[in-house]
């Protein structure tokens, strides 16, 4: 029996959670129950042989790559990059071009929790009515520092998705992140 995350019905429901997450940055979306980390479930939903994926921190095993039907790509070239949030940034992702900003990468960052971390961030921008606050745990400080450089010249930039065991939270390139303590 094929595991749930590789089935069409799961992927449809998971996709709607991803849409909800990117539509409402900073808000946690809980994925339908499955036996996988939310980051893996999101990749199963969005990635296939017509896309590209980098795994610089070796979070995926052989069975994942077989199911995705692709081989790993260098993070500098990949449309999707799976990252371990505790590690510092060690690559430069695609930021797209003026004519094709959609080529900016989507970073899926595995973190321990969306809240309870030492630093609180205020988020504003499209999808957020006034402001929301997050305090992720297990996210190296370099990710948001580098992000502000990558996203310095809209429409170029990268879009981020934080993922815990069961939930996701999106930070599209339009989200302004401000440290508040």
């Amino acid at each position, binding site marked *: 029996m094929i595991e749930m995350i590789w089935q069409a019905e799961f992927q449809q429901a998971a996709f709607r959670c991803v849409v909800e997450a990117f539509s409402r940055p900073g808000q946690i979306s809980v994925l339908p129950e499955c036996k996988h980390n939310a980051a893996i479930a999101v990749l199963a939903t969005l990635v296939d042989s017509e896309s590209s994926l980098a795994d610089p921190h070796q979070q995926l095993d052989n069975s994942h790559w077989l199911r995705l039907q692709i081989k790993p790509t260098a993070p500098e070239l990949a449309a999707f990059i799976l990252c371990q949030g505790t590690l510092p940034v060690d690559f430069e992702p695609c930021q797209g071009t003026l004519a094709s900003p*959609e080529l900016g990468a989507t970073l899926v960052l595995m973190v321990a929790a969306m809240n309870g971390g030492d630093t609180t961030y205020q988020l504003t921008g499209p999808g957020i009515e006034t402001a929301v606050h997050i305090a992720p745990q297990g996210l190296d400080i370099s990710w948001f520092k580098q992000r502000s450089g990558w996203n310095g010249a809209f429409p170029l930039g990268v879009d981020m998705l934080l993922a815990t065991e069961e939930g996701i939270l999106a930070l599209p390139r339009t989200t302004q992140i401000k440290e508040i303590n």
Partner: protein
Amino acid sequence: MSNGINFAFLDEYAKREIRRSVIKAICIPGYQVPYSSREMPMGRGFGTGGLQLTLALIGVTDTVKVIDQGSDDSVNAVNLRKFIEMTCPGIATTTRLQEATLIQSRHRIPEQALRADQILVLQVPYPDALVIVEPSEDKRKVMHGEADYSRLLVKLYEDIVKFDEITISHRYPTRINDHYIIDPSPIPRYDVPKLHNSKALILFGAGREKKIYAVPPHCPAEPLAFDDVPFRIEDFTDSRGERRACKLCGSQESFLDEFIDEQGERVYQCSDSDYCEQQQELAHG
């Protein structure tokens, strides 16, 4: 599936490609994300761009509403709804806006405000507002990227000088999140302000032109205007200065269609038939 047709018609590769494009469209508000529009068993120009979005989004828990120029009963709306019902066993359909989770529409945004748990899919014939000033798509893409809309603004201003007001009745150029200018599809000017800070996600699908774009929730959407020529919605005031009313429900707040009845009289009726019916139900208890 027993009849050999994939749930929601599209194969899973097509759905994933549309899904990846939808995510980028939300992340870059107003930007036209290219995708490889699939052949659908109906001619392009019959809402296949919107339909492909609906099919990439839809699941068994969804309730779908399909409208064409405000009506659930027009041939186009009926055909699209039948196709969705046939290819998506288990989903529900409705004509009542409040019951719908997914709304696919052509030419109108529903009269009543959308909720955060609803998604509106608009069918788009011509996605690029710059096409009237620049024939080359490569050049238009750079102009969009730089938010260089000076030629579009000049063109609009020439219109104003000639006609004393902005004569565009549909497809009013609208700036999203202070950067991209979109063609909001052939909705009337009356509907354009509904894009601004909408509670619901609004997705646009152009099947023939192979583009997907989005206005996320709580996102600024400003119709183009000039200091001396502000943006105005359609005027439904009669010669005595009174707001015209719908002849069926009496509403003086809705967008009205104008037509000539059997006696040759000019009459007005809500364009949104679901809203009109709900107003009539309220009036009759």
